[in-house]
Every structure is written in C-alpha cells, then in structure tokens.
C-alpha cells in the first residue's frame, strides 16, 4: 500500500488532530493537573473572607489585571514587590461560579505596580478609597482610571456609611463621597493581598537596589503615595513633611517613633487630618527606617542632623511617645 497521506483527508487531518492532542497533553493538561494537585496553600496564608471574595469578583469584572500583575518573578529587579511568588500562593483560587473560570490574577502587563503584597505595602483603607475614587488625587502622574461608579455622593450620608476623605480639589462641589458595598469589598480584597511567609528563605539574589537600599528609594515606595515625592503632602488629606516642625526638630525621637508606630488625630500646622498614618515598624528594619528618616531630614529644604540605625533601635525599644 502506498503512503498517500496528502490524498486521504481522514488520515491527514486525523494525524493533525492526534499529534496536537498528544503534544497538548504533555505541555498543558498533564502539568496543569500536576500543579492543581501538588500545591497546597501555604500554612501561614488565610482563605479570603466572604467580603474579600466579593472584592475579587469586582477586581475581575473591572479588569484590574490588565494593568496590574500579581506575580513577583524570581529576579532581583522584582524584589521591591515582595518575595518571589510560588505556585502555592495561588492554590486557594477556585472557579468563581459555574460559568466562570478560576480567576487569572497573574497578569501580563505592568502598567501599574505589582499588587501581590499591596495589603502590606499600603494598608490604609482611606488611601485605597481615595485612590479608587480618583487616582490623581494621590498620584498626580497616574494613568489609572477613576472608578466613580464604586461611590455615591450623598448630602447627608446615613449613619454607618464610609465617607471617603477626598482631597478638596477632586471632591464634588456638593455632598460627601460615600463608598459603596463593591468599593469596600474591593478594598477588603486588596487588604488581603499579603504574601504569607515561606518558611525557608528564598533563593533569590536580593542585592539592595535603589528602591530597597537608599533613603530616597525607600521613601518613594513606602511614603510618597501619601506625603508625595515633593514632600508637600496633599492639602487637608496628608500632611507635608517639607518644613514640618516635627521632621525638622533637632531631636529625632518623635520623628522615628511616628514612622515606627504610625500616628493619628494630631493637629499639624493647624490642620487635623482625617486619615491615620500606618505603622512601619514591622515592615522596615532599623537600617531602612534610618535611611528614610535621614532622607526626610535632608530633602526639600529640610536641613537637620541625621540619625543612625542604632538611634532607631533605641526608639524601637523604648515606649511610644
């Protein structure tokens, strides 16, 4: 019998189908099954609360993953976003409903920052809400869309509603901005994005880069979202550090303590701020806090003495002022 493949459609297209299916089983189905079965959630991780699970659905519906990844590569250049992600980090994700697949949150483009660890990096609910209402209120350079439909404007917000302290320039002329259920769920989801510890240290080279190793870089990542790269803050929302008496005090104890433990309810320059300043003592080591504090004390026209890591360690041991 002659092997006339190109004259026998059943043979030709049967072959085309079978080979493709076989190759697909090797590179897709088998590894997917393996990944699904092998990886258990990390012991230190927590399942999403019902509210945060609702938030994940908002996150998918609004298409946040088209601009935000949740995937820290095992590369030094990614280290500012957290530790490298492992397969187990995604093990809790499930199909969202009978007509929806497992949510794909890894993303493929970083128009905005990676969000794997945003719950740790930006724990302030108020900041998140202002940012969603209008990203340019806190990041004037941002290209992120505003999500106006996640908020209502109410002249007399009912008791128990969450009023968003939107900076005046971006606030509606009349009434107060109130976060909807969907907005609060979304923010709860963002707050839940905290990388669980791995148990063993990761293998990656995390040589300090500009953002993880210098005061200016650390300030840009941890503080600029609120106090702004210019140190000028946002009027009536986040206080300026430029020319601020506490930052410019000769004794840096109060300055260091504020960064370690956060602050709320102070009257600064005659203004009472509606938002709390989150504590950073758990996330940054003494070296890093000293670098940030020194950056603040010597930038934007501030000009006072600098501190060392041992000064920070001393304040860390003592009680909060």
């Amino acid at each position, binding site marked *: 019998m002659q092997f006339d493949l*190109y004259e026998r*459609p059943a043979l*030709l*297209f049967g072959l*085309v*189908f079978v080979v*493709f299916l076989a*190759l*697909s089983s090797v*590179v*897709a189905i088998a*590894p*997917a*099954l393996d*990944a*699904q079965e092998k990886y258990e959630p990390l012991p230190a991780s927590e399942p999403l609360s019902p509210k945060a699970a609702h938030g994940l659905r908002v996150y*998918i519906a*609004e*298409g946040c993953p*088209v601009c935000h990844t949740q*995937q820290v*590569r095992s*590369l*030094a*250049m990614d280290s*500012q976003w957290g530790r*490298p992600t*492992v*397969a187990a*980090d*995604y*093990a*809790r994700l499930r199909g969202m409903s009978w*007509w*929806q*697949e*497992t949510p*794909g949150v*890894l*993303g*493929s*483009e*970083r128009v905005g*920052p990676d969000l794997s660890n945003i719950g740790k990096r930006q724990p302030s609910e108020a900041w998140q809400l202002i940012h969603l209402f209008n990203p340019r209120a806190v*990041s004037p*350079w*941002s*290209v992120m*869309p*505003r*999500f*106006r*439909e996640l908020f209502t404007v109410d002249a007399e917000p009912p008791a128990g509603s969450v009023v968003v302290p939107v900076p005046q320039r971006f606030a509606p002329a009349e009434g107060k901005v109130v976060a909807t259920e969907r907005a609060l769920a979304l923010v709860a989801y963002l707050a839940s994005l905290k990388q669980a510890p791995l148990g063993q240290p990761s293998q990656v080279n995390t040589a300090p*880069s*500009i*953002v*993880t190793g210098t005061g200016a870089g650390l300030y*840009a990542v941890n503080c*600029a979202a609120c106090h702004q*790269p210019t140190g000028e803050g946002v009027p009536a929302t986040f206080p300026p550090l430029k020319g601020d008496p506490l930052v410019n005090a000769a004794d840096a104890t109060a300055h260091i303590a504020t960064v370690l433990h956060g602050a709320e309810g102070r009257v600064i320059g005659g203004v009472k701020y509606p938002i709390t300043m989150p504590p950073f003592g758990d996330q940054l080591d003494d070296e890093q806090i000293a670098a940030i504090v020194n950056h603040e004390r010597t930038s934007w026209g501030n000009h006072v003495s600098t501190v060392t890591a041992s000064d920070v360690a001393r304040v860390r041991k003592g009680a909060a002022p």
Partner: protein
Amino acid sequence: MDPQLRSKLTRRPLAVAKAAIDELIDDDHGLTTLVFAYLVSAAWWLVFGTLVGLYLSLKFVWPELDGVSWLSFGRLRPIHTNTVFWGWSSHGMVGLAYYVVPRTCRRRLYSYRLGWVALGLMSASVLAGDLCLAAGISNGAQEYRELVWPVMLMFASGLALTLYNFYRTVVGRTTREIYISNWYVLGALIWTLTLITISYLPFYQRGFGETVIQGYYMHQGVGMWFTPMVLGLTYYFLPKFLNKPIYSYSLGVLAFWTQMFFYTMIGSHHFLYSPLPWWLQTVAILFSIGMIVPVVAGTANFLLTMRGSGHALRSSYAVPFLLVGVVYYFVGSMQGSFEALRSLNLLWHFSSYTVGHSHITMYGFVSFLIWGGAYGLLPRLSGREAPHLSIGIHFWLAFIGLMIYGVSLSVGGTLQGLSWKHGEPFQNSVVLMAPYWLWRAVGGTLMFGSHLLFGFNMWHMLPGRTPALPEPLTQEPARAI
C-alpha cells in the same frame, strides 16, 4: 522652487495606475454573497474594534477622558482584543477560506446554508461577548479567554460547522492531492477547536493549574489559529495574484509540520521566571528558537515566489499588502524568538514592548494578509473595484501608522524595562512612557483612518445588480494553481 521640478511634481499622478481586474472568475452567486457577508462583518468589527483601540490609546494620554463604568479601561481593553480577534481577523480569514477551499478542491462548497449559520453564530458571539464585557461579566481567566463559556461555545460551534463544511468539501474534491492551503485551513480549525475545548474545561484549572493552561492557550490562540489560517490563504492568493506556481511545495510541507510540532510547545514562554516548572519554561524557550525553521521556510517560500514579479508589485494593489504581511511575519516572529530568551524577556516582559509585538504580528502580519486577499479577490467576485487612490491611501496610512505604533512601543517598552531593571521608583516608568504612549495614539489614529477607508472600499466592491465590468467570463481556464 526649480520650475522644472515643480512641473514634474504637479504632473505626477497621485496614484499610480494599477491594472484593472482582467477577468471575473466565478459566477457562483451564492458563494459570492456568502464571502461578502463574512467580509462585510469583518470590516464592521475592524472599524468598531479599533475605534475602541484608539479610544484606549487616548486614555493613556488623558486618563480622565471619562468616568463611565462601561467605558473604563479594564472593561474596554478586552472588548478591543476580543473584537479584533474573533470579530475582525476570524471573520475575515474564515470568509476568504469559504472561497479558497472549494476553489482549490475544484468543486462547489458542500453547504451554503451551514456557511450562513456559522456566520450567524460567530457574529452573535462577538456581539454577546462585547456586551458581557461591557457589563463586567468576564470569565475571570486571563487574556483572550475573557469571554464566558456560553459565548465562546457559540463561537466554537461556528468554527465546528465551518470545519465540517470544509471537510466535506475536501472529501468531495476533484483534484487528486489536497492542496496545501487546505492543510493549513482545516488544520487551524481542528487545532483551535481542540484548544478552546482544553482551555475551557475546568477539571485541571484549580489554583496554579489555570496559569499552566493560560500560557498554553494564549500562544496557541495566535499560533495555531491566526498564523496557520492566514498562511494557508496566502499559499493560495500569492501564486494566484502573481499567476505562477508557489516556489517550492516541499518547503511548504516542511513549514507545516514544524509549525505544528514547535508552536504547540512554546506557550509557557509567556510565564518565564514564574512558578511554572523550570523544564516547561526551558522547553518553551528551545522551541521558540526552533520556530525559526518554519518561519524562515515560510517566508523564503513566499519571497522566492515573488522574486522576479516586481511588475506585479507595481501594477497590483493587492500584492503590496501581501508583501508587507509576509515581511512582518518574519520580523514579528524573529522578534518573538528573541523575546523568549530569558535574558531579554526579563527586560521586556510586563512592558509595553510586548504590546508592540502583538500589533506587529496581529496587524502587520495577519491583518495585512487579510486585506491583500480581500482586495485581490473581492473585485474578481463582484466585478466592482474600489477607487485605486483610496486603496493606496489605506495601504500607506496602515503601513506608516503601524510603523509609528511599533517603533514607539519598542523603544518605550525597552526603556520601561531598563528603568525597572535599574531599580528606579515605579513612577519613573510611567512618566517616561508619556511621549511613547502619545506617539502610539498618533500611529493608532492613522491606522484607524485606514480602516474607515477599508470600509469605504468594501462598499465600492459590493456586488451590484449591474456589474461594473463586461460580462463575467464563464469559467476561468483550468490552470495549475
């Protein structure tokens, strides 16, 4: 200005006279209407989908453009990609294939009715998909898999009917061998149906399983659907328009089989340095380099077929589109092979560079070949031509627009990656992109203008009640393809 030069310039015609179509090849009215129906909807989805694309590109320049929920970037972006994928490119390719498959089998299409039903299913799925995405109803999975399965099932049913229709046509062919175009076209349909099935079944997609499938899906979508489909069509149109046989049949055979073996393996290059098994990533990289074989074989075959046909290039308005498409097939794929190398991927991954690659390939390669096929074929079917000038302007606007689009994002994307690599604050990478995103919008405006002209030209080519050209010739003399 030198008067002699001026008179030269003023006398120079705006459009070079191109040969009018010299023959009408078919008077199969049913097939003509069917093919036109596909291409008219393709043209509509192109205009709509790229209007959305243009709007998206403006949002990078003016993020405050609107505050309407269903116009928000995260919802519109998948509307753009799904419309140009399943609407424009798929309708265009399938429509042309409805002509090419029966033609190369030398018999009538098996069933016209099924062809119309398939068109209805495909169009309805694009419409339903866009409405769902605008309403925030999304599958949850990543790119090009945003449509929920009931919608995708409609689309897949359209493809399945088309496959059945084509298969029956091939079985009843009057030629001895199955022409190479048909391997590609039917192969693409078989692969894509398998791909959609595998990628939508949920049984292995819990947790990280979803990501494994996503890498596989994302690249097979472009690599086992659009690529083989337009290549198959080009194996017919290029020799046809040049009126000579393809340079080498064996090169085509080599390209076909290596395409299937290599392309299937490379999906994981979308997730380099991710928690995907390291061996899977390495396999993907090796075969991404291996892809040079089918790409060079395919490109060389087409270019060698074109060699010595400079005359056709000057005198036909369809062949320049084909030439650009073939060149971009080569350029985009080579770019892809480099992008898959770990040392370069770490720079370009996540950056706008990849978006540039997507358009260099899906636009420069796939869309140009569809336009070439349409401009060459449709006048022969309807006997009506579009004004040569507006076809020429379409060509140049699309070509220059894509050039601006591709160069700005390649340069900008590289700088973006370098900024991340140097560990600069994230803000820098957004701020530095501003001029490149602006240039992308400028290029996009030219491209969109060209699509309006394509719509206008389509309208001119529509079959009228009175043919614009003399009596159709009864049958084209049989000729080796």
